[in-house]
């Protein structure tokens, strides 16, 4: 099998995905965030490569050029990169809040808490927070 660009890109996607999944299954928030970031790279490259691989032909219109890279996946991936930054920031904030609030950065709840509702009649569900006195 010839060592082709296609194989390099495909294997890079595969390796990033594998690394991402492995880190995603770790028990602490920080590796999970790293895992999500790796998966983001993998997905972005995957989407990008759906336009097939083109070397040396950017989608900038030019009178002499006849071949262009597919611009559509590029536009989609560009916004995906920016949005995934936003999403990463949100999960980092959540992880940080969870760590600062509970003093632990484990991703799994320590035990399942079945009776978080304090009342049998559901008429009261959601009234857990005591809030006496008018605002």
């Amino acid at each position, binding site marked *: 099998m010839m060592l082709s660009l296609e194989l390099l890109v495909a294997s890079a996607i595969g390796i990033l995905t594998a690394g991402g999944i492995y880190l995603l299954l770790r028990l602490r928030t920080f590796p999970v965030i790293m895992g999500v970031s790796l998966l983001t790279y993998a997905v972005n490259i995957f989407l990008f490569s759906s336009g097939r691989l083109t070397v040396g032909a950017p989608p900038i219109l030019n009178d002499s050029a006849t071949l262009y890279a597919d611009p559509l996946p590029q536009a989609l991936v560009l916004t995906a990169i920016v949005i995934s930054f936003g999403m990463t920031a949100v999960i980092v904030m959540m992880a940080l809040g969870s760590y600062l609030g509970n003093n632990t950065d484990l991703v799994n709840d320590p035990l399942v808490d079945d009776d978080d509702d304090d009342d049998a009649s559901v008429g009261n569900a959601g009234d857990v927070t005591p809030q006496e006195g008018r*605002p």
Partner: protein
Amino acid sequence: MSLFLIVALPFLGALLPGLMNQAGRDACSGVTFMVSLAAFIGLLTNLPSVLAGEVVTVGIDWMPLLGLNFTLMLDGLGFFFAFLILGIGLLIIAYARHYLSRDDNMGEFFTYLLLFQGAMVGIVLSDNILLLLVFWELTSLSSFLLIGYWKHLPEGRQGARMALAVTGMGGLAMIGGMLILGQIVGSYELSVILQHRDLIQADPLYVPALLLILLGAFTKSAQFPFHFWLPHAMAAPTPVSAYLHSATMVKAGIFLMARMWPVLSGTPEWFVLVTGAGLITMVLGAVIALFKHDLKSVLAFSTVSHLGLITMLLGTGTAFGAFAAVFHILNHATFKAALFMSAGIIDHETHTRDIRRLGGLRHLMPITAVIMTIAALSMAGVPLLNGFLSKEMMLEESTQTVMFNTWWLVPALATLAALFSAGYSFRLIAHTFFGPKRDDYPAAPHDPGFGLWGPPAFLVVLVVTIGVAPFLVEDFVKIVTASVLGTTAELPHAYIKIWHGLVPALYMSLAAVGGGVILVIMHSVLQKIWDATPRPEAKVIFDATISSFVSLARSLILPLHNGAFSRYAAIAAVTIIGAGYFAWITGVQGAATRAPQAATPVALAGWAMLVAATFGLVFLHRNRLLALIMMGIVGLMVSVGFVYFSAPDLAMTQFTVEAVTIILLLLALNFMPNRSPVESTVLHRVRDAFVAVAGGFGAMAMAWHYLLRDAVATPISEFHLANSYKGGGGTNVVNVILVDFRGFDTYGEIIVLGIAALLIYALTETLLNGPVRARLLNRVPDQPRAGGMHPMMMVVLTRVIMPVVLMVGFYIFMRGHNEPGGGFIAGLIVSIAVVMQYMASGFSWASSRLRYPYHGVIGAGVLLAGLTGIGSWFVNKPFLTTDFTYVRIPPFEKFELATAAIFDLGVLLAVVGAVMLTLESFSRLARTAHTKDSVHPMDIDPSRQASTEEGA
């Protein structure tokens, strides 16, 4: 005034009370009153055409493909209801101004009230039934907010939830019914549907549609067996009860039955269901009302009973029945709203609504006593008051109605209901106002100011006027009835009279009033029997039903959703891999159509670095700082890959995002442990590695497969390449797609980005206002900090470089349309220029120089992009159509001006705002942790005097 404006005014006006909240209670209620008054006057300007029998319609297309259009119509029925809603609304607003205490948030109250008012007016003026459904749901939601307005009262919250559950369920059923109706007729316009009575009633789906629509109407109008939510909704403040639960919202179901009357009524199904439910509700409500002790409970059950009466009349399907129903709607609205407001006055002045603790109030509160007595006598059906007139008409209609082949059934039940109705009305008067004066009232009762008794007094004047001179409203009631019937031909010739002669209805009426007096005399005995009788409690049944649903949902969800994130992730990964594998082995793979391109040594080297960094990241992930460096390398190599594969825009974006992400993660790592401990067993890790390798192999196989094959269908990219310059005026196709072809997507995306940043800001605020704050302040860094936090070299360098970086950003932005660049990338570059200042000189120094808050920057960006889009409406083009032109200013070359550039500027601002707000939020946490944040730009500053220097 245009119907659009009448409906829109309350909604637009709902913005005002919140704004006026700080200006005082008079201003807040005043502005609400003026909004309602404007809508009311607007309605009255349409009175002449309604009186002339015309139907006023306006409409614009909304979603014509779905049949959903914003069409409104105003006929007699619509006018009648809108008149009640806005007219009584005005009285309620005046009353609520004096009723609410200083502790109540008046702006919130009036906002909800106006939302509700707008939704109600929308229902009664809608021509399109889908539009009607939208308003219908809005009334459910706004009434939920109003019932639960006193959030500190558990009964209020429970009552609000119950009302929402019941009316919301009914609303869903009604959507189904309306859709069936629309399918049968082929149109969702009421004006069309109402012309097709025969078509609808002959359709096999008529009965399902009828059942579903009636479910909606019955739940809204509290008809048996859905009557139970209304008494629980009485936990609302009294103005709400008076407005929603007597005069307006509960009449929405009645309105709908009247509206649909021409096409749905007259069948045996309609008669049995509607008259049957009405009769049961009427008797049941009246009986229960007699034994309630809470003034508002009595009134609530009496409302249930009277709504049953109106439903029963509509069910008979005769023109006279509709006539009596319309008249009773008017009468009931006047006396019941007055009664509720009076009950509110008593509650307000004596601090109790328990009828057993009252009595003798006629001496202490003479004005209230007069108002409430007249209104209650009207409710009892005493002559010369309006309640008498419509009750007589109801009794007369009942004698004409034969149900189940039993001639006496309907008249007997009607008389029984009237009897109990007289009974509780008399009890209300006798036990509240008569009897000896007591000395154990919770508060010293006295008549309130005019603000509270004025509105009910006004209604009582109407009660008496209509009662004495019914001919004043007769023509109006006939016009309304004509629009219920859909024709004027069947209109009854009988007119409303006080004296009909010695007809059966008179004897029934006499029996009811006489029996009512006896009931009051025997009340204490009857009450004992009632209290001793076991009865099903509707709330208990309702709660049990709901909790059985909840436990069913729990038993389904909890085993799957047990809080173990790793488990969900593993299940998801394995499922996706399995599904992919299944698709692969069952599908057919075509032959490769693309020739593979040979890998150059450069590509191989880049690949090797990417793979090495990924492996490094996975194997070294326990050392978090090292992991971060590895991730930086991965990101960098991905950017290089984008360059190699002809995607310069992507490369620049990835590169700048990478820088920002690393800064963000470093900030977060500042608070988190530096290492991840070894926790999982070797077996676990092997298992995870197996899943990961399987997933990676799947992704690789899929990518490799399609990289060697052409797309199955022709990609649309050719269109973009061909039209980018011609249509969008730019040569950088990627940027033209972003700001032009797919501008709407981009617009959505900057909004998402802005929301994400605001979410982070909100989370930070929550953390900083909670117990975490103390922990952050007391936190001791686990590693020694650098001596000089703001080194001079870095400060000087970042200051010097800032204009350069901004210039680069400007350049990248300007050339974006034609060369790699654009708003996203420029936004990120500008952010980095600013972030460098934060890094060099610290949060305090940088943020004290911040002139615009980042929230505003995000908002300005989204607004600018949105306004650019809206701008194209003014030249009759769809949202976000762009235009461009070329101009030449003498010393420069010819250059292009495109509206897309303004849009791109919006993108830039939104990106800058979002990135900066995110980073700023993170560093606010840091600032709380290290209180030694200096206001000086750097630690060592030769220009400062040595005495103020802090040692480095």
